[in-house]
């Protein structure tokens, strides 16, 4: 008699058997016992206790949070509102757009890459300091003003900048009145900036369009809303492939998926009513 394979038995732990499998398990003591033990193994895995936290885990995290200025009882609460208040999907689109624009900037400026640099001070309102390899740091008052291109993926704050000729960059500690533009390279930078602006505009417009359609308050029919949600989910999924641990994208992805699931249930319910 040919017994069921281990993988077939593993499948039978939580799926119904095919007719021939059911007949075999009924008649074969060895396979029945093996299946019982596989079920017990699965149940034991589900009942495993959580391991203890390593000692000093909180202290280590607290230090990391303090180093980033994320933990402080004096920090003011941040308020949300404005045009997106009460419209989670529009907030989703706006925030996601901000996140992805960094990638769009990199793509649009890819052709202008040059020296390898390190970037610091990228929080909003901070000046961006660019450290070219072997050169003096450069400064721009607005991060968006620095034409940079990411080098590689992930969260490394290492980027490649075009040659130090952009009029928006000022040489720190230099008394020569700033960088001297070189016409050909300047034209290249301007062209890249135009491409970036176009890419940004198109991306934001698309996201906002999807979000506006997907919003229950939009008045769009459910099928159209579903299509818009699917597009948003696909967009966030693509972003997650590049930055799977990003909390913002994960949060918005979950929100869009939940909205889609709710809409699916609603549509399924409507289907049932028709019959």
């Amino acid at each position, binding site marked *: 008699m040919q*017994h069921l394979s281990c993988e077939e038995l*593993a499948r039978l732990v939580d799926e119904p058997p095919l007719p021939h499998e059911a007949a075999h398990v009924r008649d074969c003591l060895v396979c029945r016992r093996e299946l019982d*033990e596989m079920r017990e193994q699965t149940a034991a895995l589900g009942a495993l206790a959580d391991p203890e936290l390593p000692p000093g885990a909180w202290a280590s995290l607290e230090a990391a949070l303090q180093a980033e200025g*994320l*933990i402080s009882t004096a920090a003011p*609460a*941040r308020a949300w509102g404005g045009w997106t208040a009460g419209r989670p999907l529009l907030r989703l689109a706006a925030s996601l757009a901000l996140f992805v624009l960094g990638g769009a900037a990199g793509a649009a400026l890819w052709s202008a890459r040059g020296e390898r640099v390190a970037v610091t001070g990228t929080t909003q309102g901070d000046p961006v300091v660019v450290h070219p390899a072997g050169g003096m740091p450069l400064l721009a008052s607005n991060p968006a003003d620095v034409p940079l291109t990411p080098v590689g993926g992930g969260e490394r704050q290492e980027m490649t900048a075009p040659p130090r000729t952009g009029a928006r960059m000022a040489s720190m500690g230099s008394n020569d009145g700033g960088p001297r533009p070189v016409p050909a390279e300047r034209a290249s930078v301007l062209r890249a900036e135009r491409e970036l602006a176009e890419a940004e505009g198109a991306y934001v417009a698309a996201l906002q369009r999807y979000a506006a359609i997907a919003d229950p308050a939009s008045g769009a029919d459910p099928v159209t809303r579903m299509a818009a949600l699917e597009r948003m989910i696909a967009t966030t999924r693509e972003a997650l492939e590049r930055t799977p641990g990003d*909390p913002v994208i994960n949060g918005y992805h*979950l929100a869009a998926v*939940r909205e889609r699931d709710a809409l699916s249930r609603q549509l399924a319910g409507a289907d049932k009513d028709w019959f």
Partner: protein
Amino acid sequence: MEDNELVKLARTGDGGAIRTLYQRHARRVFAVVRRMAGDDALAEDWSQEAWVRVIRALPTFRGESQFSTWLHRIAVNSALHGRRSRERKAGRETMMDDTHAARPTGGDALLKLKLERAMERLPDGMRRVLVLHDVEGYTHEEIGEMLGVNPGTCKSQLFKARAKMRNLLSPAPEFAGEVQTCNT
């Protein structure tokens, strides 16, 4: 105090609220990361990284899902990301040297230890799916979404993982010569 209220305070940097959230959820986060990492030191790093990401992103959390769901997903994805970034260890898939393998019929500490050890010896792909499905209770659809594979692939990996676990935990079955092996 509910999680959502703590989250509001934590957004302002309130140390007490952050600590309370941490105390409430840290063990679960560490557990899933630890099992996916298969290594204490890595798990500690990835777990901390997940928490820093979460606290950093609190202003963007609008309560549209449970805080614990959001947190857990970030922890899982941090572990997946960390795993992909890390150089693969050679020789992970080694058989247990313990010849006194327990049968999973009881709830004793030794059995749990053996289960944990056996999971650590699974190949990465199998371990991820087994941990997410059988230990953490995610559905195949959710796992497929996280891993970027279709649910059918996820199921296939799960069945192989269960079979492999069975081999790692049990003496050779009486009918070993008759069944297909599942050592893939």
